[in-house]
């Protein structure tokens, strides 16, 4: 960690100066964490349709940039071929109860509110097939 070192005088003349060296550790690149991308299979195929909301919720509380797709929020059951697809999106309103979009919006707002109120630390607990993420207030 930190160590006490001696700096030579800047002009070459004069006393050495004592200083504390604290090595900078690297950091990993910032993440844009998607719950589902356009390349991923739908939750229905990978796990189950119900899994979408829990995965989406965990990502909503992620301490990083987050991303998603309309198909994920609409619980669209298939992986679309983006190159060949010609159909247009069906546009849903904010209050629509189709899909998990409304729930995710509430979760995203909750996360924002918690962070603004000072909650900063996270914890992921995993037991068998269940994961839980907890945000706590630092003291």
């Amino acid at each position: 960690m930190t160590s006490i070192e001696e700096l030579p005088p800047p002009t070459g003349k004069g006393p050495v100066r004592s200083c504390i060296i604290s090595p900078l550790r690297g950091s990993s690149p910032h993440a844009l964490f998607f719950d589902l991308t356009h390349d991923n299979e739908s939750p229905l195929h990978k796990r189950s349709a119900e899994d979408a909301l829990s995965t989406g919720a965990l990502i909503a509380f992620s301490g990083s940039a987050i991303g998603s797709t309309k198909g994920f929020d609409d619980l669209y059951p298939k992986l679309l071929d983006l190159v060949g697809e010609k159909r247009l999106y069906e546009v849903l309103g904010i209050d629509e109860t189709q899909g998990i979009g409304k729930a995710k919006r509430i979760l995203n707002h909750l996360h924002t509110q918690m962070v603004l109120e000072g909650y900063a630390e996270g914890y992921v607990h995993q037991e068998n097939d269940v994961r839980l993420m907890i945000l706590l207030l630092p003291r």
Partner: protein
Amino acid sequence: MVDTYFTRLPRNDVTSKFNPTALALANNGWIWNADPLRNFALLPSKAYLRREVIVWGDCVKLRYGAGPQDNPWLWEYMQNYVVGLARTFDGFRIDNCHSTPLHVGVAFLDAARVVNPNLYICAELFTGNENMDIHFVSRLGINSLIREAYNGHDPKEFSRLLYRFGVDRSVGKISKFCAYCEGLRLAQVPCMEIV
């Protein structure tokens, strides 16, 4: 029976003045264990000859060479295109970033940032190792790397991804600042609580 490796431009009034072999454009794709700093369409790579390339039929490789002097028209055309996009949008998502030659990406993103200094760059980057990822991130100035939750194939792996990308500060972590204070005896109060 086999995937075609070339997109062949039709012979018409525009194309007939060129050498017919120039009308066959190599399709882009990917190869296993690629070194992202080397172009597998150029010697000494024999990836196309050996049919090692997993090809995408909807895009072709462009010959950027070592710099603008190797293909001035292409460099000017693509730089104008990128700069136009940078004026229009707030950010770019670089698809398959590891297959863009680094000197090409650096030149075009530098030009983009002249017209849009706050351009947000995210990238899909699969170089195969973290040090190479960091090399690309630092040379190109990538702001965020795209990570996918559904890559976690089981709960344990997904938890690992959440911790790695989604937990900025974990509960009960000793911060360096606290340890520094403790070392200089500036503060007698504990900086960390185990919950």
